[in-house]
């Protein structure tokens, strides 16, 4: 699918901040509001824009116990379907938040979110490693989130420029 310059620009703006409204984007890139709205609608329909969500820093919540693990999974690919079939078997689990096919020493990188370490341990031992194609798994728990999707979680940059300057 070939995207034109304006479509790319719209996507870049929305990727930075999904809450930009068509009327403002229109002013920023020199299209009419209707054209922007129509382009966004089309990009949504084509699934180029997959979804809009909010980045939440759950660590801010008192007594939050949720954990995230990144699991390196080695699998045996199957003739005809390659890695796709086993990837699908894995990503259908609701605990799984992302699945990537990787180059290097393992095949699939799987991110799993759970309410506790136990819950993830159970998922890995009972669901993931018991799949036929799965050869081995290595589980890494995330300890702290510093930066995610280009956003820094830990510190807030303040504007300390002087208010008026030449």
């Amino acid at each position, binding site marked *: 699918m070939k995207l034109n310059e304006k479509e790319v620009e719209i996507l*870049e703006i929305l990727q930075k901040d999904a809450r930009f409204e068509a009327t403002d984007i229109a002013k*920023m*890139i020199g299209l009419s509001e209707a054209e922007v709205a129509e382009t966004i609608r089309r990009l949504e329909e084509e699934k180029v824009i997959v979804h809009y969500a909010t980045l939440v820093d759950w660590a801010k919540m008192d007594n939050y116990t949720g954990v995230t693990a990144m699991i390196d999974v080695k699998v045996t690919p199957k003739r005809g379907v390659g890695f796709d079939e086993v990837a699908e078997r894995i990503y259908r689990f609701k605990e799984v938040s992302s699945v990537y096919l990787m180059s290097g020493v393992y095949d699939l990188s799987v991110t799993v979110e759970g309410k506790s370490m136990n819950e993830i341990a159970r998922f890995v031992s009972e669901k993931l490693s018991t799949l036929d194609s799965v050869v081995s798994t290595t589980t890494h728990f995330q300890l702290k989130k510093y930066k995610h999707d280009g956003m820094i979680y830990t510190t807030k940059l303040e504007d300390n*420029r002087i208010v*008026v300057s*030449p």
Partner: protein
Amino acid sequence: MTVTKSYVAKSVEQMRPSGIRKFFDLAATMEGVVSLGVGEPDFVTTWSVREAAINSLERGFTSYTANAGLIELRREISYYMTGRFHVEYSPKEEIIVTVGASQALDIAMRAITDPGDEIIVVEPCFVSYAPLVELAGGRAVTIGTTDETGFKLQPEQLEAAITTKTKAVLLCYPNNPTGTQLDREDLELIADIVRKHDLLVIADEIYAELAYDQPHTSIAALDGMRERTILINGFSKGFAMTGWRLGFTCAPKEISSAMLKIHQYAMMCASTPAQYAAIEALQHGMSDVESMKKDYRQRRNYMVQSFKEIGLDCHLPGGAFYVFPSIQSTGLTSEQFAEQLLLEEKVAVVPGSVFGEGGEGYIRCSYASSMSQLQEAVKRISRFLEKRKGRAI
């Protein structure tokens, strides 16, 4: 014993303080101000550039550099000027690294000005030009540009301002405060006159990286102009490095060695960590410049369009990060407008009048701020204008 006389030099006593100062003092005491008054990028210097400076400190590079700056940096500047603006300068003899473009302007003025020499200054412009000319012992002859020509200097205006005492013309494009950019054709007409009268050009091209509609043409790149141009550029705006205070001059050998004399006595050299940072900026920072420029372009479009919608006429500025809308429909002077806007809606802008002839009736609005700040500013300005509608002027 009591002091009975003023020790301050007459020439300094007579200098007007920068008109921006007043608004700074007022705005600085207020909470919740949305500022469109800022003349510097909102971006923080790219991490890789900051990291290069940290690394230079860790390795103990804390001594003076050559007066003209680190030769590695001057080489990078030379490549950059050739690649980007198609003008070649010898790193050894024609490039001086300075403490910001401001110091570059100062040594340029002092190197060329004899008592009584006239330097033509095109207004509205950066507040320091005329004072620097005067401090150097020259006389600033101002030309006011107007909105009808998009604040572009007109060849006939230049021609009319030239006298037998004229030494040089000081140009700044893309311009602070109007954002006006001159394209090659505009520059050719000016260069013709400069050559005809055998003048020098001091070209302050500090905003050259921030040209949005077409790549910046340097006047030094035009036929026969390299030999009569002092180019001034730096890292503050395009590379978001204002606080590092790092600029440079590119000029023919004879003028460069004259400027270097002043520089070595007055400044010795620019800050060493900043110079190491600048090497990294030129070697690996261009993609960051491009990405900031893309954001600025979107914000420029947003501001011009939004101002039009709320009734502030505005030409589309080709560069820098300023829009310069007319506020004449309100019947207020630009200073009244700026002051009332600050007090009533807590939006800081700079009155056009502080930038000299042609600036009255306009305000300078910087869009070097996040989109959310700009959206808020537009909302407040719109409310401010709404309140004035129907009011007797």
